């Protein structure tokens, strides 16, 4: 059970990685096809839901982790921050053609989201306090 939950949790995390990579290309000014952005947004939706559901299931499934461990609560907080940033980025991308400031704001939001996702990965690996 643990193995399959970890697999599904990891696949979901990889989907988030796909979104971050594609939007990094957008943020550095690569002209990205609409189909690519559509795939990135769907990966974000599915990956976000998957990491949360399978992550919580994993925490409840393993005896050595408690749902209220600091690193799990920290990961949940970062997940909500990343989700909020992701929604804001999707909304801005779907808005009518923006000006220079809007493009810069979009790039800034993306880089903050990237740092948050890397922070999540750090928490998942080092598990401080576990």
């Amino acid at each position, binding site marked *: 059970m*643990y*193995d*399959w939950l*970890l*697999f599904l949790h*990891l*696949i979901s*995390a*990889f989907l988030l*990685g*796909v*979104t*971050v*990579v*594609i939007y990094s*290309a957008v943020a550095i000014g*690569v*002209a*990205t*096809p*609409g*189909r*690519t952005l559509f*795939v990135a947004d769907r*990966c974000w939706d599915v990956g976000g839901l998957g990491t949360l559901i399978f992550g919580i299931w994993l925490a409840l499934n*393993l005896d*050595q*982790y408690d749902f209220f461990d600091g690193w799990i609560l920290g990961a949940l907080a970062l997940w909500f921050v990343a989700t909020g940033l992701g929604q804001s980025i999707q909304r801005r991308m779907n808005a009518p053609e923006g000006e220079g400031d809007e493009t810069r704001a979009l790039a800034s939001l993306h880089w903050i989201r990237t740092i948050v996702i*890397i922070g999540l*990965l*750090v928490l998942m*690996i*080092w598990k401080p306090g576990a």
Partner: protein
Amino acid sequence: MSVLAAIRPDDWNLALFVHLLGAMVLVGTVVFAITSTSAGNMRLGYRTLLWAVIPSWFVMRIAAQWLASKEKLDDLDPEPAWVGIGYSTSEGSLLLLIAATICAGIAARRGSTGGLRTATLVLVAISLVAYGVAIWAMSTKPT
């Protein structure tokens, strides 16, 4: 194995972090190459393969070797199945990615969107499926 994996020693963490980060960037850039190529932008697909996919493959693979040496996996006889799956999928996929990069490069130079585009797409898509298998093997650790 599952419980052992959940409580690994701390000095494996950095190698695992670099391995996972490299693998995530690899999968992300592979998806980017597939969607760009399928949209007919061979130049973007070629550049993605050459400047992002192949370098991230090396980051993933070198970190994998670093992790394997810390875990002393290469000393195990017989080699665990999941380690063998990891090596064969990663090394096999490098050949596919190099072939795909060559196809995409020629297609971009000729401005072609025919057979070479299809060949690029098929080669990169097989690599992506292989990475799905590798992620399954790394997480479920079949014996």
